């Protein structure tokens, strides 16, 4: 009886990100029945893929008890590199993007070796990324390579492409982080780093892997973004930093303790991507929209806290 109740609570907590998104979608459909079509959903989730990828990047960093305040600026830089070099000098462009990923892994190493607060390091790095992006591309411009543009605007019968892409991302990362044997070590680093080190694993390596993965998904986020917009802009993704953190938390993650959920993070990103539309349909002025998104976040977190407290009792 109590075990069943506990199971239900656990199930409820895991299902919360999905329930939140479902409620949001139902509200959108009620206000605007036209949205309930392939075209409507494609439009609503238009930017869901880059946001979901940035959220996954953030999730890797949060999983090892750090926070990345530079992901938005980083995604902006990636769009600039991609827009400027990929169509004309693809090899140079790919090299620069790989360099960006290596830089992320190096930041992870720096944070671990010098025991620095990640918030400070990544806040500093956000200015570095933004500065580099502005140097590369002082005014919005550049051009997405055709293959990228084609991929991001793929038409699939029946199901909107962004939803398929989000599903693929969720399944792949879920399998890699939650079910592979090395994924356990990576998450253990967030749960009890001392225990992981005492079992003979290198914390330096796990931190570098996690930051490297964050860089990789940041690059993917930037590529998918320019595939959608077809022009690059240094400040195009500034809001992604907060979106990604909110997405991880909405998806059932916690700031400390290695508690994350890739599937939840993708759902959280979809929720954030569609929340703006609902607020628009409700005729809430854009000035209030950010505040209203914050309110949604607080409501969901309160619900989660209530469920957890019930479980403890």
């Amino acid at each position, binding site marked *: 009886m109590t075990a069943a109740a506990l199971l239900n609570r656990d199930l409820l907590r895991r299902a919360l990100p999905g329930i939140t998104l479902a409620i949001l979608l139902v509200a959108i459909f009620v206000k605007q029945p036209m949205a309930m079509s392939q075209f409507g959903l494609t439009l609503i989730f238009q930017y869901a893929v880059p946001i979901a990828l940035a959220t996954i990047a953030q999730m890797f960093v949060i999983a090892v008890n750090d926070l990345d305040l530079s992901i938005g600026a980083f995604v902006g830089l990636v769009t600039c590199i991609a827009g400027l070099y990929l169509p004309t000098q693809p090899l140079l462009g790919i090299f620069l993007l790989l360099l960006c990923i290596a830089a992320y892994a190096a930041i992870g190493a720096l944070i671990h070796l010098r025991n620095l607060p990640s918030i400070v390091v990544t806040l500093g790095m956000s200015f570095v990324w933004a500065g580099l992006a502005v140097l590369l591309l002082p005014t919005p411009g550049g051009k997405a390579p055709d293959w990228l543009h084609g991929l991001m605007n793929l038409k699939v019968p029946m199901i909107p492409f962004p939803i398929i892409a989000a599903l693929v991302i969720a399944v792949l990362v879920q399998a890699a982080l939650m079910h592979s*044997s090395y994924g356990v070590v990576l998450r*253990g680093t967030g749960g*009890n780093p001392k225990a*992981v080190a005492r079992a003979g694993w290198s914390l330096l390596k796990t931190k570098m892997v996690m930051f490297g993965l964050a860089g990789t998904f940041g690059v993917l986020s930037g590529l998918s973004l320019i595939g959608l917009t077809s022009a690059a802009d240094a400040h195009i993704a500034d809001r992604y930093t907060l979106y990604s953190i909110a997405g991880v938390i909405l998806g059932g993650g916690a700031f400390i303790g290695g508690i994350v959920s890739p599937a939840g993070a993708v759902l959280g990103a979809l929720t954030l991507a569609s929340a703006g539309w609902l607020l628009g349909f409700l005729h809430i002025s854009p000035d209030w929209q950010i505040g209203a998104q914050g309110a949604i976040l607080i409501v969901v977190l309160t619900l989660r806290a209530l469920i957890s407290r019930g479980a403890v009792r």
Partner: protein
Amino acid sequence: MGTQPGQIVSLKGVAKSFGAVRALAGVDLAVGAGECLGLVGHNGAGKSTLMNVLAGTLSPDTGAIEIQGRDRAGGYSVTAAHRSGIRCVFQELSLCPNLTVAENTRIMHPALKGFGWKQRAGRLIKEKLDEILPGHGISPGETVGELSLGQRQMVEIARAFTVTDEPLHLVILDEPTSSLDAATAKQLLDFVRREIARGRSVILISHLLGEILQYSDRVVVMKDGKVVAERPANEFDRDSLVAAMGTVAEHPATPAEMRAARARTRAPIVVRAKSALQSDDRELVAHRGEIIGLAGLAGHGQTRMLLQVFARSVGKMHGAEVQGPAAFIAGDRQTEGIFPLWSIARNVTVRSLPKMLKHQLVDAPREAEMARSWQQRIKIRTPDMDNNILSLSGGNQQKAVFARALGSDAEIVLMDDPMRGVDVGTKLEVYDILRAEAATGRTFLWYTTEMDELNYCDHIYVFRNGRIVADLPREEMTEQKILQSSFQESA
């Protein structure tokens, strides 16, 4: 001396220092195959440091480590220890609370990988748990954070005895039964004996002397970073073990002490507090001008008692009677004691600022005057009290923390093992100040893990498991009595 055949581990002359503190002063230790070695000693005797050296988490400054006859002093690490079949269950738990029981097993075993690793890890840990504790009710898929403390301890111990591709020769168990009830503890220790019958070796560290005497083959006693006694377990009994752990020196009462003891009955009571866990009617009582010692093993409720008294003094709690304002001197200087970004002067005066106001603002000359006078009284060694507090040595930082409490209006001073990591010279200076302050009517409640410091106290309460278990006036206090009460078993 060569290594005898059948020896798993042999340490020779292992020494390790942390700054000025000598944790291990040349230790020789050997463990044979199929042997249970009991290791006992008071707090700070060096047991944990020694075990960390064996487990590969700390490297010794000097000395030789031989594993199965091979010298491993150079490049000995956690990985090397695991490969040589040495595992350690540390006193504070080493499980990841966000992972499941099976996943935590995987962390220990690099070999658990590839397809189906989760099932294999789950089966491995479940079989071992079933063997140690039938009917344990722990499922491999459960998240460790949701298990009780006792269950976590069981999982960690079971995990240490699981075998994949690496051999298993020696398991170090540091206080393995601290979160277990008596019946479960017995099941665990019976399992340990079965493992030993299979030729494995165990080092058992416990403050429950009954466990040590009953389950070990040989007992090693450590004190001050050295091995002071080593005999087969059946040649020890409780009393001789306790005697070996401490120096049995009687402190004859001096006339001054007799005076203090007499004064106890006359001076008014300023603190009366009872622990929430106390089942009998023992309570802590302090009279004005007394230095009260809170003794016992670390973490047995002394700090909680001090916090209880402090909370009462600021009117937050019931369950204690406190007459007069109290000040708290933290032992963990870096996290609770100092304000690291402030000057020495401000660190000293912060508690007294409300008394130095002029037009609702701090009167700077009076603040500087207080800082200067305490610099002289307590001899804080600095050219300028306006320097940052971190410019001082550790001992002088702690003096500033003392000055903050002594310079305040507090009549009761609560000290949470404040001399941790302070050099001897500073300690002696502070002891003198304490005695002088007590003579003027201040009352001190002093939790200390150092036996020597109890000699400065008028009255001593020994704590165990959150309760007061002994109540000794100064003239009756001996190290042996304190050890006896600290290690007594509840069963």
